[in-house]
């Protein structure tokens, strides 16, 4: 295969990474933007989405696509409810203190991972893709499901964008983000906004997990890499900025796709991690953020 098609393949793989990453990172960014909470358990929510997708597919005696659609509904609802409970039982009682919530969500991360290990097991398990369409290009064939993942991510992200800019709920969330006290003075139930935001952020991670599972299998430790990448994306995109987050996800995803095609994966990861760390060090406000 010559260079041109090879690059095209790398870019297409990068698009898939970018799409999933954008979903997970937008969830993290929403939570940080509105609540100023760094959710270290976000990767665990992603993993839970994938594991639930496997559980639904394995226990539902129906064609693969039915199970997949069911998982797309069940996973975000379950994970969102879990996040809402964590918010009410833990985060709220910590008064959303930044450092205390980091420690608490680290604890949450360990509890969720251990629970997954205990009830789901240490194996990586595959889920059949809902359809097996194959797109035949002149140089190589490409999985139609991967293109569907990109499309689905675009649809969900557009829905989030509409929610934030065009609905009353979005307005309330943005008002809380700008000033919690003033929002409360205007009669906004800030507690409910926080609970909803935390649940929404976790649900987005769960959707990303469901989408990725037919491509990469479900495993109880799969949340680590997406967590780190989401952090990177959110910070490079500028904390709390949705548009920046999506752009940064594209850069990181495509970059990852291209680098890992041309270098060994480990070296690629070392280079990418150090490069992004340098961006954080020398431009802490992110590439698109206005102020720190």
């Amino acid at each position, binding site marked *: 295969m010559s260079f041109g098609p090879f690059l095209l393949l790398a870019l297409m793989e990068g698009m898939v990474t970018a799409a999933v990453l954008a979903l997970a990172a937008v969830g993290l960014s929403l939570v940080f933007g509105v609540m100023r909470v*760094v959710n270290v358990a976000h990767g665990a929510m992603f993993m839970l989405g994938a594991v639930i997708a496997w559980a639904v597919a394995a226990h539902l005696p129906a064609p693969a696509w039915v199970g997949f659609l069911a998982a797309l509904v069940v996973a975000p609802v379950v994970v969102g409810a879990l996040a809402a409970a964590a918010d009410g039982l*833990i985060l709220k*009682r*910590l008064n959303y203190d*930044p*450092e*205390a919530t*980091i*420690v*608490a969500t*680290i*604890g*949450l*991360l*360990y*509890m*969720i*991972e*251990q*629970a997954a*290990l*205990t009830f789901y097991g240490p194996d990586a398990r595959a889920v059949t893709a809902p359809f097996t369409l194959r797109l035949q290009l002149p140089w190589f064939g490409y999985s139609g499901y991967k293109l569907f993942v990109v499309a689905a991510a675009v649809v969900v992200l557009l829905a989030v964008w509409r929610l934030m800019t065009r609905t009353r709920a979005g307005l309330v969330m943005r008002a809380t983000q700008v000033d919690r006290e003033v929002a409360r003075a205007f009669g906004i139930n800030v507690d409910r906004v926080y609970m909803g935001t935390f649940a929404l952020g976790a649900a987005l991670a769960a959707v990303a997990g469901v989408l990725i599972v037919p491509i990469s299998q479900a495993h109880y430790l799969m949340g680590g890499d997406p967590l*780190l990448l989401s*952090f*990177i994306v959110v*910070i490079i995109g500028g904390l709390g900025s949705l548009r920046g987050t999506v752009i940064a996800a594209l850069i990181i995803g495509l970059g990852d796709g291209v680098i890992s095609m041309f270098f060994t994966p*480990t*070296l690629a*990861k*070392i280079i990418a*991690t*150090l490069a*992004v*760390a*340098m961006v*954080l*060090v*020398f431009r*802490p406000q992110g590439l698109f953020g206005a102020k720190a």
Partner: protein
Amino acid sequence: MNGGMNGGMKAGAGVWAVHLAVLAALAVAGLLLPAYHMTNLARIMVLAVFAMGYNLAFGYAGLLSRGHAMFFAAGMYGAGLPVWHWGWSAGPALMGGTLAGGVLALAVGLLALRTAGVSFMIVTLMFAQAFALSILYFNDWTHGDEGFVLADTGRSLLGWSMAADGPRYAVAWALFAAGLVISVLLVRSRFGRVMVALRENEERARMLGIDPFAAKLRVLVISGLFSGRGRGLCGAVRLCRRRFRRHPYSILPMLYVLIGGAGTVLGAGLGAGIMFYLTDFASSLTSAWLFLVGAALVVLVLFAPRGILGFVRARLWRDLP
């Protein structure tokens, strides 16, 4: 703090009495305890050296670092690789481990301390990730994926073999004692006050003429030296697993410090001891001990954010360092 020079000196004598009494009690315990608990206690003291280092950065200076697993690992490789490749003995190897932790902390600190708060946590986590990947990448040299067994020459110190219980306990105690004394001296010094000032309010500290960057860098390097020493010791006396495990080691020191009381010198050791026996007990019941670690973190931060000795300091003895 306690009204006048006189009160300060009296408190100083009390502080030293308590800490030296703890050390004496540990020394006696080494003579009296059965072998099983003696090994455990040696292990706890080694972990406590690591935790004391973390406590200086996290508890006193307020640096929420996730990079300490990296300094810890640097200590292991700094001590272990020379033994493996060049046949060093344990003494120089320990120095090598300590230095490796400190040098890496200096390098990371120079870059990462340009950020603060959440960004600092993430940048240190990323450096740790890159470090862990590098260890795998240079596998021919580091044996990162399978670990390595040290020759016996690398495990003797001043002619004693570290494989025996008695000398091993003595070495662990000596390094724990050194760490404890250095910590008390440090936090009671002028620089100790600077660390607390940075934690409480960096802007005001700056207005008092303190250079936050230089001060934090010093804390981080000292903390890195402690971590490297703790891990170098671990390897030399074969008290902990040789394989580099990123996850627990980046969280456990934080847990120890939070249990014992962040910003208390003895808290790190107390937390390490409690958590060690709690984990020991829990793993006899279930293999799900990481769940316990997670639950302990959540419960602590919810109900006892100051830890055990933090409570003691708030209610009983204000001058506890």
